[in-house]
């Protein structure tokens, strides 16, 4: 296995009687894009806050680059919190200068880099404006620039895609991949499965503070086997969920994803379906991350 950059070893954190994170362990390989997935309240943000040493775990260890967290490490980390905001009364250029300086750059250098980034994000004309004059989307972009200004070795993004339009979302994905190619390790949390599916090499699925499954995305999917069917038929298809061997049906509009029950036989199912309606598409596939997510979360809650 590749070199591990970030190692979390059975961390726990409780707030009062509520266990937000309960014995979570994970290893983030250096230079990877790693997604922490989980439903709302799973403990993603708490985990991230512990990674950043904003709050301390009740127990367990966190190592970054083979060492426990130390203040010097802060300069190597870039962090984008889940909720967005910048100073209302501060000019964007000063904002970039301030955050750059806090990360150890000179004010001049951070403004120079900030201007370059602003050009890329189409924010250049707004550098002299105050935060409150920017639209919400532009504020998000400015905040993202603050996060990457110092070329962090470790980039931690909490729900980076929420609230972005598709164009900005693509730009952000490009930049994440670009930073990865430059050697940064990127860890982000999300509950948007499609972005995770397209970006992540590794995922860790957590629910109720515990790890449900983790590993290389391709391997995780392979683990579930080609146990899904993409099916599209003519006319009424409501009978699909009632057929023997079908666990659940998800409607994606153009096609339906059928999860096979244990021992479900695709060939038998094909015969059954073709006897009832004309089949436009019938394809064996790996389950979508969306379905893996739902099954894993439900499975972990059933126990």
């Amino acid at each position, binding site marked *: 296995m590749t070199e591990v950059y970030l190692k979390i070893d059975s961390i726990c954190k409780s707030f009062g009687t509520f266990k937000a994170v309960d014995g979570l362990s994970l290893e983030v390989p250096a230079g990877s894009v790693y997604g922490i997935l989980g439903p709302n309240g799973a403990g993603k943000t708490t985990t991230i806050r512990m990674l*950043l040493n904003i709050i301390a775990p009740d127990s367990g260890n966190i190592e970054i680059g083979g060492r426990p967290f130390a203040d010097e490490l802060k300069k190597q980390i870039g962090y984008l919190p889940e909720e967005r*905001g910048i100073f209302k009364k501060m000019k964007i250029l000063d904002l970039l200068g301030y955050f750059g300086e806090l990360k150890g750059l000179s004010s001049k250098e951070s403004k120079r880099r900030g201007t370059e980034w602003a050009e890329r994000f189409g924010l250049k004309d707004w550098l002299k404006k105050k935060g409150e004059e920017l639209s919400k989307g532009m504020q998000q972009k400015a905040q993202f620039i603050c996060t990457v200004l110092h070329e962090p070795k470790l980039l931690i993004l909490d729900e980076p895609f929420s609230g972005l339009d598709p164009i900005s979302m693509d730009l952000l994905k490009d930049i994440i991949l670009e930073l990865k190619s430059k050697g940064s390790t990127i860890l982000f949390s999300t509950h948007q499965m499609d972005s995770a599916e397209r970006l992540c090499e590794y995922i860790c699925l957590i629910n109720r503070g515990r790890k449900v499954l983790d590993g290389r995305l391709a391997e995780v999917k392979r683990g579930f086997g080609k146990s899904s069917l993409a099916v599209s038929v003519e006319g009424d298809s409501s009978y699909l969920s009632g057929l023997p061997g079908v666990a659940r049906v998800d409607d994606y509009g153009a096609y339906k994803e059928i999860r096979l029950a244990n021992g479900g036989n695709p060939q038998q199912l094909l015969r059954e379906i073709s006897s009832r309606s004309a089949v436009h598409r019938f394809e064996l596939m790996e389950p979508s991350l969306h379905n893996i997510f739902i099954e894993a979360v439900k499975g972990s809650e059933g126990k």
Partner: protein
Amino acid sequence: MRNLWVVTKKEFLGMVKTKGFVIGIFLGPLILGAFMFLPAFLARKSKEPQQRMAAIDQSGWLYNKLDSVLVDTLPDGQKAYILSQIPYRVDSFKPEEEKLRGRILKKELDAYLFVPAGIDTGASPVYYARSAGNVVTQNRLENRMHDLVVARRLEKQGVTVANLKSLLKDVDLELRQVTEKGTAKTSFFTVYLTSFFLVILLFTTVLGYGQHLARSIVEEKNTRIIEVLTSSATPFQLLMGKTIGLGAAALSGVLAMFFLGFLFGAPLVRMLEMENIKNVFNPVLLVNFVIYLLLGYFFFMSIFTILGAISNSDQEVQSMVAPIVWAMVLPMMIGFLVAQNPNAGWITILSLIPFFTPTLMVMRISYLPPSWPELAASYVIMILSILAMGALAAKIFRVGILMYGKRPTLPELVRWVRYR
């Protein structure tokens, strides 16, 4: 260390560059100047109009004498009073008075005076005027009539006095404050105004910057900037940077204000010969003002830090500010008692309680500086309280900046403080 400097610089510049800061520097001395110099200035330059006054003299003797002593002139040399006599007749008295009132309302006349027959045996003369505010004229009339009536009484006793005015001259009690440097001429009014101004300046500075601090904490909390900041610097660096940066701004504002005040005030003091102002603004008071400003600043900043850290909105901060305001304005509420006896036991004790120390001490010092041991004791108590309150604030800040939603209850706060 570098982060502390970066935060301090940002907070300082962020404050100093605002319009409000610059305006405040000019406004402070201007308001004080208005209070201190305007009365003296107006007294010199005031342009009162001529007063047309009628008099009904029932006594029969007073009018002529009054006419000969009421010879004040206006600054432009004109007579201040134009007096006219309305003869007194029993049968036409009522309608005559009606007529006079009518003329006053028509502004043909400013006032009329009724002199009763028994004025020298205790009956009061009555002054009828459109405006009750002309205190100068009322005082003059009263004084002159007083002199005339006294002279009349003396005459009746067989005493004739050639120079009654100098005989009846009032005794003016002059106030000289005894300080270590000898005696200095002051006036109660000046001292009172000065102490009031300094207390207000201290109080508004601390309150203004304190609320700014609390609001900026709330803003950083709500925008989650605080999380980004704490992933770059420690909470302690952030808090210290904010406090020191804003404190430097507050101090430079006040010093700039003093500088401007002296720059423009000194020539005015010389011009208006207001020696006593120089004596009131003595170095002991000014140095102590700066000391108590800083001590008060750091003490109340800790409290505002706590307010900011446990609040989720400006409104929540605002609702908790009132007790602080009350603590700080206490000296103004008991100002007259302090003036009477600045070193009374209970005032001494009150002024050693950190919440009241800064403002109350500044007020006391402007009347009569307490002994050095007492001053030193108040410094020490303040510094210890700042350290204790600061440590408490730092702990609450560290936890509070990451807590959203409900404001914590007291037991929760205690738990926050205990967190390692």
